[in-house]
């Protein structure tokens, strides 16, 4: 499974692809919903690592518009529960991640993205 928590940290690692290589664009996805344990302390600590714009855009592309466009200043329980769902309870099982810069396609099959590069793409 690829959860959005991981997708939000992932940029393209092909040779020479160092700018505009994030976020990877999700294509032709099949999603799965699964329950995960709610951990507000973890989420609060994780907030600074997130690229908020990329997270909201990606979630909206997947049909989830529960998160506000602007990152809130106060993290109340209601907000953290929505964030929890988006980050940890939605997973991409099939489809692909496409680099917005070099167009490298990372296929996702059976929940596992193939991150292998060809010889000429290795930095």
């Amino acid at each position: 499974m690829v959860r959005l928590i991981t997708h939000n940290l992932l940029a393209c690692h092909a040779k020479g692809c160092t700018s505009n290589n994030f976020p990877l664009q999700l294509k032709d996805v099949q999603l799965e919903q699964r329950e995960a344990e709610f951990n507000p302390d973890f989420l609060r600590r994780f907030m600074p690592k997130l690229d908020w714009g990329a997270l909201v855009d990606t979630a909206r592309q997947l049909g989830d518009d529960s998160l506000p466009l602007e990152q809130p200043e106060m993290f109340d329980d209601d907000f953290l529960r929505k964030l929890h769902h988006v980050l940890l309870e939605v997973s991409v099982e099939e489809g692909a991640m496409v680099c917005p810069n070099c167009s490298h396609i990372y296929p996702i099959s059976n929940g596992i993205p193939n991150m292998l590069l060809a010889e000429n793409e290795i930095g």
Partner: protein
Amino acid sequence: MSRPELVAPPEIYYGDTEASKYTQNTRIQQIQAEMTYRAMELLNIPEGETAFLLDIGCGSGLSGEILDEEGHIWAGVDVSPSMLEIALEREVEGDLFLQDIGQGFGFRPGSFDGAISISVLQWLLNAETSHPTSSPPHRLTRFFTTLHSALKNPSRAILQFYPTSDDQIQLITSIAQKAGFGGGIVVDYPNSKKARKVFLCLFVGGGGGQQV
């Protein structure tokens, strides 16, 4: 019996048969669990805190299961599809990636609170082709540089591996240092040929917490 890393590259060696043999072997399970607990101890995450961790060479999820039990959230990478297949069947909680660590990571700076790796690094010491990007120093450099960047400051990466010589330890530690890591080698049971375990303990920044 030859060491597996000398027989074939990991994604070939750990085909369906070896991957399931490895996972079902209770002796391997036990050693793997002990080393994972020891790596977690060296990782020094504050008691009771849920961390976001990277499992490097997660295989069939033997370590991942322990990370799940301890309440951590993790992503795992492995180059063997057969191993990952078994990890899926075992329903581990982490996000799994088919990835060759010698090609480096694409994770954004500061993504992980720590990383562990059990019995993997020795695979990077063997060249797979004659292509320049396949030489062990090149692959180790890609690996350590992109790992260093993927970890937050301060944090640690604990990598247990099986070196065959002090030269190998020297090569690995010097490349890790060049990539920006501090830290060094911890050897458990140094005088027992069988039980001896080598842990490469890498620090980003001060490594966090008290020294090992």
